[in-house]
């Protein structure tokens, strides 16, 4: 039965996290300053989880001018070089500020892997002191019958945002929604923790990296553990889901996003860098590594062009369009060409539709002047459909990541309507995937989640006419309806396309973000993308007089150096449907999503064909808590 093995993986991943949640969380080893033993950093970090056969780098950092004479690096007591059957290299660099550099010795193993499941202890002895980390190699699951995996990520998406979008899109009468989103009908619903190695608050890079690798990273880091060396590309790497399924199973890989395709979330599918801002390097990474996704659709043409061309951002002079074309890609640049490509699927497709981030649904469909000259951009639905047409031709299956990037990019500047439009479009893209899978490939796992939250919530409605007519701030506040006075917003969707016919109805949502700079809020749709705050003369952010001049003034709730809302701590929703979906109906860590996707397709990177052997038996996990209803509850 497919259910049991991957259920066990849930337990073996989740339980240690819960058991150790109260312990100090530090990505580093002993860091005692002063004259004591040399501080040691071991990467990957303590409690890292692996699949056997998945490759990764190890880096041990020891502060000092030279390697300690007594240096010993062991795994379960055996020299690490013997354990992994590989030799290390040693490098030296300086960390810390230029005024007070600290010399570091780095001992590195590249591309090692574990042969089998089990727990391991890595010990580093230096200057008489020992630092250790524990690593857990999980047992691969026999799979749930999934051949394809689609990971939908709405960047910066929360339950509160989904609920607001549902009210506006579907309508609510006497407490009941008139119809559900497709997301709402997913059989498995869970939550995912999002914190990273360095902070409880994550960014899109380390969160998406966790989803794609099963390993935590730090803010700005992709597919690697952050070391202290100045170089951003030499940090110890971990293999991504896309790399694993392409290398071992011959599966196709697709990337669809509304952002620059080199932005953090899409880059997490394939990139390895400490610095997500290295977008020129990220754009070239597939060419340079040879891991060529079959489908790349999104924005970010600027990162493909040499800087000698107006708009180009590449200092290396390469024209990546030419290089991707030479690597076998068909290239499309607008929605019309994309539709043609979908009709006769090419082997590899690169479609970039904007110089930077693509325009949001509201600007592509309502306030179309905001598109500038990019008047024929495809939406997320068209991009998803074309990607599925191409990827679906691979009998070995595929991994497709689809990102609604601007849910995050619009709620950062507190632009509720632009965020809502892209959530409705996100649900439409998921609906398209469900229909495609039902018709073409029922053995497709669909996972839907976010990388982190935002502090958005709806607390009532606003009588727009009264708000705008009020002579003073108390009058405007009185136009906000609470509890029974809130009633229902008056959006109408007569044409049934799921989007309001008019984004400026008489009663709108009273919705705010709880962290923000000084700004003004009128709760009404903005005809241009919002810029709520601008830099004042001393660099502190102050209200933008051009944004919501009719709004109520809001006192800043964050450092004055912050121009807009930021990511928040809350667990993000996880939805799933298709074979292997049950795994996701749980409270998960974001790293568990990687293992859940691997479990659904029975991925065993230590097997020659990447498939978990039929006779593999998952190890029993002894319950050290209370067994209730077949579940082990621990504290």
């Amino acid at each position, binding site marked *: 039965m497919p259910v049991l093995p991957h259920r066990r993986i849930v337990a073996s991943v989740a339980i240690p996290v819960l058991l150790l949640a109260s312990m100090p969380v530090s990505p580093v080893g002993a860091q005692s300053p002063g004259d004591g033993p040399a501080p040691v950093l071991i990467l990957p970090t303590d409690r890292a989880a692996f699949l056997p056969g998945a490759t990764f780098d190890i880096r041990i950092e020891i502060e000092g001018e030279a390697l300690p004479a007594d240096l010993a690096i062991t795994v379960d007591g055996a020299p690490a070089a013997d354990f992994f059957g590989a030799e290390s290299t040693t490098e030296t660099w300086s960390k810390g500020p230029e005024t007070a550099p600290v010399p570091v010795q780095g001992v590195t193993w590249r591309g090692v892997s574990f042969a089998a499941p089990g727990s391991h202890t890595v010990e580093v002895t230096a200057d008489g002191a020992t630092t250790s980390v524990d690593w857990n190699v999980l047992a691969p699951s026999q799979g749930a019958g999934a051949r394809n995996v689609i990971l939908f990520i709405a960047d910066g998406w929360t339950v509160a945002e989904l609920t607001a979008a549902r009210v506006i899109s579907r309508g609510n009468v006497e407490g009941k929604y008139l119809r559900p989103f497709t997301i709402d009908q997913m059989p498995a619903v869970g939550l995912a923790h999002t914190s990273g190695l360095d902070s409880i608050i994550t960014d899109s890079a380390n969160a998406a990296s966790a989803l794609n690798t099963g390993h935590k990273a730090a803010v700005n880091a992709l597919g690697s553990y952050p070391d202290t060396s100045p170089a951003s590309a030499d940090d110890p790497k971990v293999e991504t889901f896309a790399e694993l399924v392409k290398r071992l199973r011959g599966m196709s890989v697709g990337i669809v996003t509304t952002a620059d395709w080199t932005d953090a979330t899409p880059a997490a599918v394939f990139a390895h860098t400490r610095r997500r801002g290295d977008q020129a390097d990220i754009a070239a990474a597939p060419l340079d590594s040879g891991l060529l996704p079959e489908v790349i659709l999104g924005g970010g043409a600027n990162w493909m062009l040499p800087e000698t061309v107006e708009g180009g951002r590449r200092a290396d002079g390469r024209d990546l369009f030419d290089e991707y074309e030479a690597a076998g890609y068909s290239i499309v*640049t607008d929605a019309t060409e994309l539709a043609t490509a979908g009709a006769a699927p090419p082997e590899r497709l690169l479609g970039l539709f904007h110089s930077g981030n693509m325009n949001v649904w509201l600007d592509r469909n309502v306030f179309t002047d905001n598109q500038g000259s990019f008047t024929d951009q495809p939406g997320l639905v068209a991009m998803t459909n074309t990607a599925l047409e191409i990827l679906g031709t691979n009998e070995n299956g595929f991994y497709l990541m689809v990102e609604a990037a601007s849910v995050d990019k619009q709620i950062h500047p507190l632009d509720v309507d632009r965020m809502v439009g892209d959530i409705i479009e996100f649900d439409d893209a998921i609906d398209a995937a469900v229909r495609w899978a039902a018709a073409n490939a029922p053995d497709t796992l669909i996972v839907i989640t976010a990388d982190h939250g935002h502090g958005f919530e709806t607390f009532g409605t606003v009588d727009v006419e009264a708000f705008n007519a009020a002579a003073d701030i108390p009058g405007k506040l009185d136009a906000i309806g609470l509890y029974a006075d809130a009633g229902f917003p008056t959006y109408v969707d007569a044409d049934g396309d799921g989007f309001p016919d008019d984004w400026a109805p008489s009663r709108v949502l009273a919705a705010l973000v709880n962290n923000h700079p000084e700004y003004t809020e009128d709760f009404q749709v903005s005809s241009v993308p919002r810029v709520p705050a601008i*830099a004042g003369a001393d660099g502190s952010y102050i209200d933008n007089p051009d944004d919501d001049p009719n709004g109520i003034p809001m006192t800043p709730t964050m450092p004055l150096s912050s121009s807009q809302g930021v990511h928040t701590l809350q667990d993000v929703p996880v939805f799933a449907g298709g074979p292997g979906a049950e795994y996701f109906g749980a409270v998960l860590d974001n790293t568990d999503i990687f293992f859940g996707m691997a479990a659904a397709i029975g991925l065993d990177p230590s097997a020659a064909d990447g498939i978990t052997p039929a006779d593999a038996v998952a190890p029993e996990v002894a319950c050290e808590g209370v067994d209730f209803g077949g579940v082990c509850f621990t504290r």
Partner: protein
Amino acid sequence: MSPTTRVPTFRPTWLPGLIVCLLLAGCVTAGTSPTGEPPTGTPPTGGPTSSAMVEDRTVVVDHPPTDASGEAVPLSFEEFYDGYDIRTGLILSDTLRSLAGRRVRMEGYMAPPLKPDLDFFVLTRIRMAYCPFCSTAADWPDDIAVVYLTQGTMRATDRPLRLEGVLELGARRDEQTGLLSIVRIRADHIEPL
């Protein structure tokens, strides 16, 4: 909260920029980085923070505008480009091309600068802000101009600006700052509106 205090008129002053900086602000910089990395320092503190106080400041240029020959031609951001070709980049308009090397007049806003005393800044069509975590320098709109002061420095400001100077055209990376630009103006006259 629109400014209610009267905007002081622009008056060039001979005060050295450094002294002006010490007098008027804490010389703090915005905690932002164009690389998308988190700010490394602490947020600015102690400086004036309300917009009312900011309004009391005057834009200061160390030197008065030099007398420039030739009538300045008005130029708007909308006139810059005829669109964008995904494979070849921005398409410069004939209007823009015809003005290369000539004296132009533009109005716009100073983008959030990285330091308070400026010898160059980015001029934008609308007021801008950007988030260091979710966007990088890549998120600059295409229709921007980099303004280099021909003499001295000026204070950062959030007010609309009118400036005059010689238009320089073509993709170029500033060796010192790494800033990529297409439209540059060597400005000798800058005033708030």
